[in-house]
């Protein structure tokens, strides 16, 4: 558990280069305490962001004795891969499986691991844990500011079919505005100026996103397997300019068969880590993770 009276730690920051199944180099970012971590969080970033957005979040997790891992998704951040392109579902699942296998080997079997997906990262997380090929053990899952099943909610059946068949490479603008992410000017400026940010993706990439959604909204998907019953939480602000929160929570409830927890933090912006609730969210996620390692039978 967290020591309640101690000075701040001298935490480490590392970038581990992983080799994907096809040889692509993927950057796995890590912030960790100097001694052995008591818990670990693996973060799935959204469409636009990458690990470089988390320079204040990572050290705080580490100071809480949590090893905080972030994979720059293929095509994002400093990882290999064409920009504006999300690879096919098999590659997405494989990349995350490689990364999480490495994480589990690194932290050992007895350290609790939470999977934390933000925005579109939550959809990647949901798809991964519902995929039969993913067998890495984890102890908790957090969906943060995520519109689960967004494309299934917004598009009718025929539109989804058209999107699934679309192999176009034209760019689709996600229409992301920094002021919807945060009200803080310096973060807005960072988002606007970030040359690593992904603001648009190819049309065929949207087809991949739809296919990823199918893994967790379609119970009959051939590659699907039921994820383990671990504590699962939906986290968001009180409102979110990008999400239909009610719709996302409905998908969440179905996905976790109404066994999930819902937590709201007092903000109306999308990127909670660039709001006043940042430290509270990190501290909550830290303790939530650490508690999964609590053994009351010792």
């Amino acid at each position, binding site marked *: 558990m967290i020591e309640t009276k101690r000075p701040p730690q001298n935490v480490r920051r590392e970038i581990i280069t992983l080799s994907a199944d096809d040889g692509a180099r993927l950057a796995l970012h890590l912030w960790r305490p100097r001694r052995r971590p008591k818990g670990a969080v693996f973060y799935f970033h959204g469409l636009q962001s990458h690990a470089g957005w988390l320079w204040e979040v990572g050290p705080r997790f580490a100071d809480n004795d949590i090893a905080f891992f972030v994979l720059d998704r293929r095509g994002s951040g400093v990882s290999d891969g064409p920009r504006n392109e999300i690879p096919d579902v098999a590659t997405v699942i494989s990349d995350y499986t490689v990364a999480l296998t490495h994480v589990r080997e690194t932290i050992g079997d007895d350290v609790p691991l939470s999977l934390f997906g933000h925005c579109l990262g939550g959809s990647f997380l949901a798809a991964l844990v519902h995929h039969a090929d993913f067998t890495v053990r984890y102890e908790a899952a957090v969906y943060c500011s995520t519109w689960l099943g967004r494309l299934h909610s917004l598009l009718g059946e025929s539109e989804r079919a058209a999107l699934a068949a679309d192999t176009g490479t034209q760019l689709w603008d996600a229409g992301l505005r920094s002021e919807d992410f945060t009200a803080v000017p310096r973060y807005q*400026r960072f988002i606007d100026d*970030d040359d690593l940010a992904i603001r648009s993706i190819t049309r065929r990439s949207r087809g991949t996103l739809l296919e990823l959604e199918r893994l967790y909204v379609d119970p009959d998907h051939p590659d699907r397997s039921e994820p383990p019953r671990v504590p699962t939480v939906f986290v968001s602000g009180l409102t979110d300019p990008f999400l239909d929160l009610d719709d996302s929570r409905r998908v969440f409830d179905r996905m976790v068969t109404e066994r999930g927890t819902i937590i709201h933090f007092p903000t109306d912006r999308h990127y909670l880590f660039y709001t006043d609730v940042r430290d509270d969210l990190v501290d909550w996620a830290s303790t939530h993770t650490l508690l999964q390692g609590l053994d009351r039978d010792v």
Partner: protein
Amino acid sequence: MGSTQWQKHWRTRRVPFAEECRRAGEAFLVDLKDPATAQRRVLDDVIALCADSLHWKERGHDVLTTAPDAFRDTLPVMRYDDFTEEIDREIRTKGGTLSCSPVLRWLKTSGTTGVPKRVPYTLHWLLKYRIPAMRAMWGVYLEHHPEILAHPYAALDTQTVYEDVDDFLAGVPYQAISNRHPKINARDWNPPWSAAPWFGTAAPSSHSGRMYHRIRHFLGEDLRFVSAINPSTLISLRDLIVEHGEDLVRDLAEGTLEGRPHTDPDPERARRFQAVLDRGEFTLKDVWPSLNTYSSWLSSSAKLYLPRLEAVLPGVSAMPFMSCGTEGVTTIPVDDSLDSQPLAVGQAFFEFVPAETDLGALLDAGERVETLLFDEVEEGRDYHLIMTQANGLYRLWTGDVYHVDRFVDGTPWVHFVHRDGIFHSFTGEKITETQVTRAIERAMTAAGRSVGLYLCGPRWSEPPYYVMVGEISDPGEEQDRLLSEGVDRALQDINIEYASKRTSGRLAPLTFTTVPHGGIAAYVESRRQRGNTTQYKYKPFQQDTDFAADILGDTASTGAHR
């Protein structure tokens, strides 16, 4: 924070701060008695910190984990610019590229090319190096002058400021090292007065505005100690009292600060202060009779300030400031010696190259640079300083030249002599040849001319300024005026420290006097005849301004500053 709250904070921090400083000072003294162990510890720490970084792994430097003694054979000597590409990467990753510590800030300092440097300020460097160095120095101050912590108004610390930051690199604050706002965590620099209104963000960020607040807060108080990095700050303290005396008297009498309610009206204190002002040639000792110590840089060119400091602070004893730059700490005082300090052997891994070696040429040629360790240097000689800091900048040729004064317990005591390739720096502005050349180029281009030979030297005055003489085709007073203004403006644009000192009045405007083509070349040739004719080179930067009289035939045009 109100007066009650900040003084409560002062009282809460007083004893812990003194203890933190005492412990850091003691640890430094232990290092000084066993410098080899301290240097080995730093080296091992740097390797442990950096071996897993992207840069070290990609270049194979991580072999040092198992072969630390190959450090100098494995890593090249670097100039700041050699790190540019990796710094660009580190700005994106915020750690993990050059070292395995989070980058919390980027430190801004004037670069030799006029482009501000970006020095990574990492959590590890903060906790293990920069803060302990500050504490060790203040430990010496407190040991010699415990009255510094006698009460909340005993010390006026201008070394550090808390100012809002408005510049960022990929979201991370980009600021001068002297600005320690915001406090990063509970282990960050936290002197008892850190919550004081004269110290914090409530005070104006302009030099004169902040100084006014400091003076107003301390007027009539039992001030014992005033600390500055640059001696010019101490001089300007008095100058600003002169300039704003009337406002200060009114604020004191009415209990205001710049017209806003501040304290109870104190007409008696205002009357006493007015009496000091009425003396005309008053000193800071007249303003604060209790003042008995000040600290600042007092070596190298800063020594030129000593006579003026003695006039402004008569009978007030001096304590030294550490030799340091944004890139790292080189020496830390252990006593009140003003001429020399021990090498800070626990702060960096230090290497030296005899100053007569043309290090730049060696690096340009890609040749191997043989370096000396701390125990291989000789008393009485000057050396280029190469240091490896635990922020990822390894084997960095600092450009600083140090003189070895003596050895004590095996640790060299050294003092800063000058910047390699840099002529002079009155008060920390570090004007380089490249910067001046660029400033002249800009001004000449604006005037439809091209830059020619010029000479530049420092003129000691109150305040000091730079004297330049340059060749153009049609010299004259109008061109002198235009180019003086243009070069001064361009130099402020290029060098933020020069701009700061100019804005605060610590430097007067430079003068640029035009002479016909050939005028300087003839002068250079005449000098060649006097010295080593083979090796004599045209050097735009001169040690003094004698050249102006020699070239212009009199000192009238440059001697009396407007």
